């Protein structure tokens, strides 16, 4: 090797090259040493290496290493150096003891590479690993990280507790030891599928998965898998949750639901038989009252006729109570069958008016029906609509002693579509302010003082409002005590 190349190697070497005497004095100092540590050759030569470059805390370590170099001939280590401007650099050091022809150590040749940046990257990785480990420990679920072939590379304490194996026993073992035997055949296949398309997902969605403890017992689990990409390839991170408790709750909830359903069915059956049992005797009462009033068995005295009419009225009242109660029960049980059809609202109101006009006129009331000239059509349930309007109109007639009852139909367009407005206006008692809150409650007929004069089930308005809700509409009213009331049913198209 020519002297020129030797000089080049010395001059151009990117690492600091320093020749140090056995006593520790700097003998030679290449340009890279100047570039890294900041001292010129003339500033460095003659100084003790320990004084010039080694921070206080590292002096002892450095001394030991030099002794090692002396004994072993070569040491390779990492350390810290203090530069001229006071900054610290991390260096990777190789120090060799150079011997003379007698084999006696003559001086040290030390190559010192600046690894500050690499060290930072490595530190970052260490911190990351540390943080990741901490993160795993703070996760609520058992976490197990496996490699491509299924060996566990990292497990958290929760996993240790959950499966009953120690951390050391788990690490390096195949994850299959945590899987009940009957699922093991499929497990590697599923794992391969996951690696084919690694993305975060629930494992075996919809399936009942089980975990296997060290003692052989099984427990229901829910597992979520996520890929973990590293420089060394893809790992799977699985979060495993023991769902024993949740399964228990779900079962309890299911049991409760069945119980409730049974109770609801029992209630339905009760209402069905109540309907049957109450109607059966009423059939005979109303039937034979009817045959007597039809005078089929023979003539009646005036008093007999009057009393039989009272019986008939009472029995019909009882029947309407039963019907209202059944309708309420059906609504409560969601069993009210609505049959929406396109209805001519004019004709519905005409039918209502026809069935109640006589009653109003018997009381001497003016009974008016105000319908628009054009037909008003709406898709809704005929029976429910008729029942609401009969209830509202019947009430108006009942609570009006003199004056009038007016049944009105209007329709208007709004942004959301057509609104059909049915209203019943009367010139009756009106409803006192303090009574208005109770108006739609069951059996809360207002104005108790007049009770003997009035009849009704106390269910009519309550039922009407529920029926209106079933039709997607609402009932509102305006009333002033002594001046009459207006009850309005609004139904919307669609």
């Amino acid at each position, binding site marked *: 090797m020519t002297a020129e190349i030797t000089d080049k190697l010395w001059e151009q070497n990117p690492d600091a090259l320093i020749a140090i005497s056995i006593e520790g004095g700097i003998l030679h100092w290449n340009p890279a040493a100047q570039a890294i540590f900041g001292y010129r050759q003339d500033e460095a030569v003659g100084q003790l290496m320990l004084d010039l470059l080694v921070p206080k805390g590292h002096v002892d370590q450095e001394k030991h290493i030099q002794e090692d170099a002396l004994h072993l001939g070569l040491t390779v280590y990492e350390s810290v150096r203090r530069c001229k401007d006071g900054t610290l650099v991390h260096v990777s050091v190789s120090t060799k003891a150079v011997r003379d022809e007698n084999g006696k150590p003559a001086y040290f040749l030390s190559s010192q590479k600046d690894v500050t940046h690499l060290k930072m990257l490595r530190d970052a990785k260490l911190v990351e690993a540390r943080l990741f480990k901490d993160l795993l420990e703070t996760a609520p679920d058992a976490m197990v990280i496996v490699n491509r072939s299924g060996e566990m590379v990292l497990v958290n304490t929760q996993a240790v507790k959950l499966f009953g194996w120690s951390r050391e026993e788990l690490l390096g073992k195949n994850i299959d030891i945590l899987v009940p035997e009957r699922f093991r055949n499929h497990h590697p296949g599923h794992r391969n599928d996951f690696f084919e398309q690694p993305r975060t997902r629930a494992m075996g969605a919809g399936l009942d998965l089980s975990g296997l403890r060290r003692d052989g017992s099984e427990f229901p689990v829910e597992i979520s898998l996520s890929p973990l990409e590293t420089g060394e390839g893809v790992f799977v991170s699985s979060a495993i949750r023991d769902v024993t408790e949740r399964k228990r709750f779900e079962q309890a909830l299911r049991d409760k639901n069945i119980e409730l359903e049974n109770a609801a069915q029992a209630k339905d059956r009760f209402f069905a038989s109540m309907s049957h049992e109450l109607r059966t005797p009423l059939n005979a009462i109303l*039937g034979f009252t009817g045959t007597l009033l039809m005078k089929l068995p023979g003539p009646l005295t005036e008093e007999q006729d009057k009393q039989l009419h009272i019986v008939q009225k009472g029995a019909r009242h009882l*029947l309407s109570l039963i019907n209202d109660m059944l309708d309420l029960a059906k609504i409560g049980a969601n*069993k009210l069958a609505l049959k929406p059809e396109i209805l001519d609202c004019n004709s519905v109101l005409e039918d209502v008016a026809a069935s109640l006009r006589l009653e109003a006129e018997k009381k001497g009331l003016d009974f008016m029906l105000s319908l628009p000239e054009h037909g008003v059509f709406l898709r809704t349930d005929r029976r429910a609509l008729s029942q609401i309007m009969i209830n509202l109109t019947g009430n108006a007639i009942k609570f009006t002693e003199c004056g009038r009852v007016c049944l009105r139909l209007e329709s208007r367009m709004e942004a959301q579509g057509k609104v059909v407005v049915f209203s019943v206006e009367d010139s009756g008692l009106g409803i006192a302010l303090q009574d208005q809150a109770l108006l739609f409650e069951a059996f809360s007929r207002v104005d108790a003082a007049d009770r003997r004069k009035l009849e009704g089930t106390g269910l009519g308005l309550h039922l009407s409002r529920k029926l209106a809700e079933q039709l997607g509409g609402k009932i509102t009213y305006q009333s002033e005590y002594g001046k009459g009331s207006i009850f309005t049913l609004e139904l919307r198209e669609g």
Partner: protein
Amino acid sequence: MMTACILIIEDDSASRELVRYLFATSGYATLDAEDGSIGLLLALQASPDLVICDLQMPVMNGFEFVRRLQEHPHWRRVPLIAVTAFSMVGDRETTLAAGFNDYITKPIAPETFVAQIEAFLPPELRLGRADQNAQEGDHGKNTDG
């Protein structure tokens, strides 16, 4: 002309008597049975012109009665009318699907009941009430508040 015969199958004696009385006073011959099994014997052996049948009865209910009747080779296929105190969702549809020609709920309206049923008899067997009373009567509509 033969008087038409109406078979009444009904377990509630008061209701049975009411229907029997209404048809008897209208001039019809009546037969009655207190459950479906007796009704089945009478329907097959006494050849009634129309059968009125309750649905909920002991021993054999109305549905079982109509099923067995229709399976029987000697059945003459006269009108079958269900009269029942059931009135829950779908009862009417179920009853008609079972083979009844009509479904009338209790309580019946005595003023119109005979006319309603007569409409199912062939015209030559009707005793005349059908036209007279078809428009009349109060069905006990709920008008209370």
